[in-house]
């Protein structure tokens, strides 16, 4: 069975220029989707009956939360591929995703707080969604800290992969346990996760913003993995050709 032609892009020398060519397209898609999403979110979607105009934060908050969660799974996937099949580029991809994922987790916390303050009166509430986002942020930071602390890049790749795999298995468990903890203690108080009943337009707005963030994430990760390639493969001839 002939190996798929796509596998030749697993070689750093061929991937580097490909990533460079693809990156502007994803950046452009991000801008396009964001324009659409913001248009719907701010000009088409109606005012909410209960939360007024303040609910419009969900258009960025939900997108950021989804991306933080999604990117962690993608990161774990690439890390696992890199570990199992000894593909260096896959491990570099995982390392490239982590900072962007952490950024989205942090944005999820910030926008969540900004949503919570006018709605529920406090800058921080220990509800299931925010607490899980906080834990997810810590998982990202742990991954990045572990990789930063290990000097040998291959060992850092593999150790990070184990941590990412353990983390991704634990994420549903952590989420479930935090939700249990939250219902146990908060009882009757309203949760931040209760969004306004969704009008069609609101859903479309959220979807487009999520797509925008996704395209942005791809563009950022492609840029970062190119940087990582330059750093780690700087001594090779193809890099010398690429930067000349």
């Amino acid at each position: 069975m002939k190996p798929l032609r796509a596998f030749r892009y697993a070689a750093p020398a061929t991937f580097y220029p490909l990533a460079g060519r693809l990156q502007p397209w994803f950046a452009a898609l991000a801008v396009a989707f964001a324009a659409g999403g913001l248009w719907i979110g701010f000009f088409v979607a109606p005012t909410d009956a209960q939360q007024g105009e303040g609910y419009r934060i969900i258009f960025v908050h939900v997108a950021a939360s989804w991306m933080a969660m999604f990117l962690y799974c993608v990161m774990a996937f690439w890390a696992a591929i890199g570990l199992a099949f000894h593909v260096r580029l896959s491990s570099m991809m995982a390392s490239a995703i982590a900072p962007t994922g952490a950024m989205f987790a942090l944005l999820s916390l910030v926008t969540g707080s900004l949503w919570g303050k006018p709605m529920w009166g406090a800058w921080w509430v220990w509800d299931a969604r925010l607490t899980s986002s906080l834990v997810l942020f810590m998982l990202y930071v742990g991954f990045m800290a572990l990789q930063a602390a290990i000097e040998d890049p291959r060992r850092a790749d593999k150790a990070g992969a184990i941590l990412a795999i353990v983390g991704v298995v634990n994420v549903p468990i952590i989420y479930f346990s935090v939700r249990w903890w939250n219902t146990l203690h908060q009882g009757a108080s309203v949760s931040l996760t209760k969004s306004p009943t969704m009008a069609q337009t609101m859903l479309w707005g959220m979807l487009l913003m999520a797509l925008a963030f996704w395209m942005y994430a791809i563009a950022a990760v492609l840029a970062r993995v190119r940087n990582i390639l330059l750093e780690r493969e700087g001594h090779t001839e193809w890099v010398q050709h690429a930067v000349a």
Partner: protein
Amino acid sequence: MSAVVEDNPLAAPAAAPAGAVRGSVVVAMRRDLLLAARHRSEVLTALSFFVVVTSLFPLGIGPEPELLRRIGPGALWVAALLATLLGLPRLFASDHADGTLEQMALSPRSFTLQIAGKMAAHWLVCGLPLVLMAPLLGVQFGLEPEALAVLVVSLLIGTPLLSLIGAIGAALTLGVRGGGALLALIVLPLYIPALVFGSGAVEAQAAGVGVRAHLSILGAMLVLALCFAPWATTAALRIAME
């Protein structure tokens, strides 16, 4: 030496006859217990830490009995968690330093089973004393006897779980700079489910609802960890030793 150790870190342990399985685990466990018996002070350190940290909560929050009774389960669980964390670097550090760990990896016995033996010994030395100490400390928080009983059971199930998860972190950070704090950063988020259900069990008892749900989930997590943690730890150790 590294070429021989270089194995696929994800390779599952080879099947072995039942006697050999028990043998590998028991041999490793006995060795660690013997070493711990010679260094009794290390055991007492973790225990003293547990006591000290538990005392910090009333000192920081105030001695009001009702408040202490409410935070007691959570405070004791957090203290147990931190005490376990403190003992984790001990698990592999000295064996790694004197080359014993590599010998274990190279021996015909299953590396995973030997590591499981080490982890069992570690729990007996670091975790079990916490379980036995907990009722005394629980009394300081004014917990009722029924609550104390649930606390002991929850810690009995929980501390092995904490040891198992923590061992993965200890293996990943073996010989790495910033060890202790890095280990805590990696492992503490993974401890959250155990904390929630462990202290939740005691609070459920205080609230009068059944504790079985909490303890069952805790037990399920322990079983899951027993299946996967030794394997993940061994993979991490092989990576660390390359």
